């Protein structure tokens, strides 16, 4: 408590105020810049100024805050009747420190939330690494390096510094050259920062263009799922204060978040790469016109985010126009990648059996033997077609192995079911089939399809099957259409019929004897169908 009179003269003080404010003055006669000398003694400048404001305005201000000898005080004024002002000083140093600590904790929590948000939004490993390095350099240190797990003898290094570019290089490094790095790469706990001498750091640690001397270093693992996702090295220049224990702990928290995100991204990348490798082999082929016959296929996997499933088709063109083109469309029980792997096996077996494709019964018998398995009864149903052009006609030999019979769309709009039937393959010891010969005139199409089309559930009432009758009705309008248009129309109608996103795989393959001759571009015309019947391709 001190009493200040008019003009800022200290009129009286109690013992506590005297020991705080006045005693240093007895040792040191020259006032420093934070103090002013008054008639009654020294007082802090911020208090003298507050007193001045109070005198000039006449209205009592609220409490003011200032520092005295490294401690903070709140000063509350209360005017006395004789015009003096009593200033009550209340120390709040501990409160301030607590508030500061709370503030920095809040900042750190916000930063952790930020990093989780920034990292979890990406499953790209490079992007995650870049974000981690950038945030570490901006918020934790002056520069940051992320050492990725080794690929062979080399490691990917990601450097970032405050206000600089993030750069990535792939270099061979000696993990033993940085204390704690080899351990951290194996996921062991970090070495205390005071054990690391910045002078021992190899050149590759320092980001390119970072020319300030290194003052302190933190090496901390980025913990991952099962194996470490890498190591984070934080660097502070010697002009900046060294890392505190609190900062070191926080760096580990940061590393834990970043490591989890990086590890998830890395696992995803591995899975995506495996799937992509498999997909390359399993994707349905692009179809085109072969020896004057149009082929078009369309495929929609049961789960729209998957591109493969249990349906498949292939067209193996004959070596020349006199040779038969071998077509297969099929469906294995099940969905997704598991089913797709079995389709891959069937497609390979059929490819190998191409030389025997003249005898469908034999091909299917051999395929059945190759698929029979004592562990499960996963089977396939398929349709084989051998296609050859004869003058303006296209001749087909069709064989169904437990599959929906192909539908023939005649030029006048009639739709016929090919009279072929047989047993599915892969589950029974013996299979039997009945093949059928079909002739397509110009403008006629043979449609091979899987039950995903006819079993599409939806429609006006929501739970009806699309069914074979509706498919036949739709095909009546597909007479004289190009193959491409037929498959697109059928897939579109089935997709429109669907009530929900859930559906089976849907595949369609059209074999069309084009209108307007097989040698010229397909144009839907109503003119004489014999235009150019003896095209150049024959």
């Amino acid at each position: 408590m001190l009493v200040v009179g008019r003009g800022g003269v200290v009129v009286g003080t109690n013992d506590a105020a005297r020991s705080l404010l006045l005693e240093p003055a007895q040792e040191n006669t020259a006032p420093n810049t934070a103090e002013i000398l008054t008639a009654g003694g020294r007082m802090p400048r911020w208090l003298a100024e507050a007193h001045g404001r109070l005198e000039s305005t006449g209205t009592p201000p609220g409490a003011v805050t200032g520092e005295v000898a490294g401690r903070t005080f709140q000063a509350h004024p209360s005017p006395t009747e004789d015009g003096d002002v009593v200033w009550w000083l209340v120390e709040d140093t501990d409160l301030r420190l607590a508030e500061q600590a709370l503030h920095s904790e809040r900042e750190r929590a916000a930063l952790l939330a930020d990093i989780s948000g920034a990292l979890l939004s990406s499953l790209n490993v490079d992007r995650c690494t870049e974000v981690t390095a950038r945030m570490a350099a901006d918020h934790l240190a002056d520069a940051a390096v992320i050492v990725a797990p080794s690929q062979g003898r080399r490691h990917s290094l990601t450097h970032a510094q405050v206000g600089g570019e993030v750069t990535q290089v792939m270099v061979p490094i000696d993990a033993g050259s940085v204390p704690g790095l080899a351990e951290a790469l194996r996921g062991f706990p970090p070495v205390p920062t005071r054990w690391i001498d910045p002078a021992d750091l190899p050149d590759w640690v320092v980001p390119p263009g970072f020319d300030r001397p290194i003052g302190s270093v933190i090496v901390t693992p980025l913990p991952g799922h099962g194996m470490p996702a890498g190591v984070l090295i934080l660097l502070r220049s010697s002009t900046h204060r060294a890392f505190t224990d609190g900062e070191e702990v926080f760096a580990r928290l940061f590393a834990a978040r970043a490591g989890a995100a990086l590890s998830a991204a890395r696992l995803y990348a591995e899975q995506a790469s495996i799937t992509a490798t498999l997909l390359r082999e399993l994707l349905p082929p692009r179809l085109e016109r072969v020896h004057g016959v149009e082929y078009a296929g369309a495929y929609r996997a049961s789960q729209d985010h998957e591109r493969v499933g249990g349906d498949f088709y292939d067209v193996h063109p004959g070596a020349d126009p006199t040779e038969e083109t071998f077509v297969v469309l099929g469906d294995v029980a099940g969905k997704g990648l598991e089913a797709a792997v079995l389709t891959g096996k069937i497609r390979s077996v059929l490819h190998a059996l191409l030389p025997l494709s003249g005898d469908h019964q034999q091909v299917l018998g051999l395929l059945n033997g190759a698929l029979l398995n004592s562990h499960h009864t996963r089977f396939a149903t398929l349709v084989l077609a051998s296609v050859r052009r004869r003058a303006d006609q296209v001749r087909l030999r069709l064989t169904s192995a437990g599959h929906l019979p192909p539908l023939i769309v005649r030029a006048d709009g009639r739709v016929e079911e090919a009279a072929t039937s047989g047993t599915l393959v892969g589950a029974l010891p013996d299979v039997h089939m009945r093949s059928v010969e079909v002739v397509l005139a110009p403008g006629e199409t043979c449609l091979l399809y899987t039950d995903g089309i006819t079993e599409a559930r939806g429609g006006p009432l929501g739970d009806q099957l699309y069914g074979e009758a509706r498919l036949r009705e739709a095909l009546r309008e597909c007479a004289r259409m190009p193959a491409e248009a037929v498959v697109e129309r059928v897939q579109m109608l089935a997709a429109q019929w669907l009530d929900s996103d859930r559906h089976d795989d849907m595949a369609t393959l059209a074999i069309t004897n084009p209108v307007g001759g097989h040698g010229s571009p397909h144009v839907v015309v109503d003119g004489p169908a014999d235009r150019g019947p003896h095209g150049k391709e024959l």
Partner: protein
Amino acid sequence: MTPCPPPEFSLAVQATDARTLRLAVHGCLDYDTSDEFTPAVAELLDAHADRHGPALRHLHLDWAELTAVDSSGLSALLGLRRRTHPAGITLHLDHQPAHFTRLLEVTGVAAHLTQHAQPPDSPAAARASGRSATAAPSP
């Protein structure tokens, strides 16, 4: 097949004696439920064997309450036949809805599924074990 509400599947014992077991299949036998079918039937067959010994000769499956069946369901049924046939149990498929009849007809497996099974200790069964020559469907 696509979803059939309710996507539930259950088995109920309709009648049983030492030689014959009659089961009713309710709901959907498809990609989502077919994995449950085989263990569910196996459990009932085991229970029957515990009670009557290996006397079972006929397993009737009643499909009147079947709402949907797809290739996975058919695969499960073929798996059941693999177990029952060598054990001398003949499968009978009763009251099939039209869509199930169509599936059996297209895939050509009806005759195979319901092929008469010889009791395992009979001389005919000894001859028939191995490759079955009578699995041909009538086209």
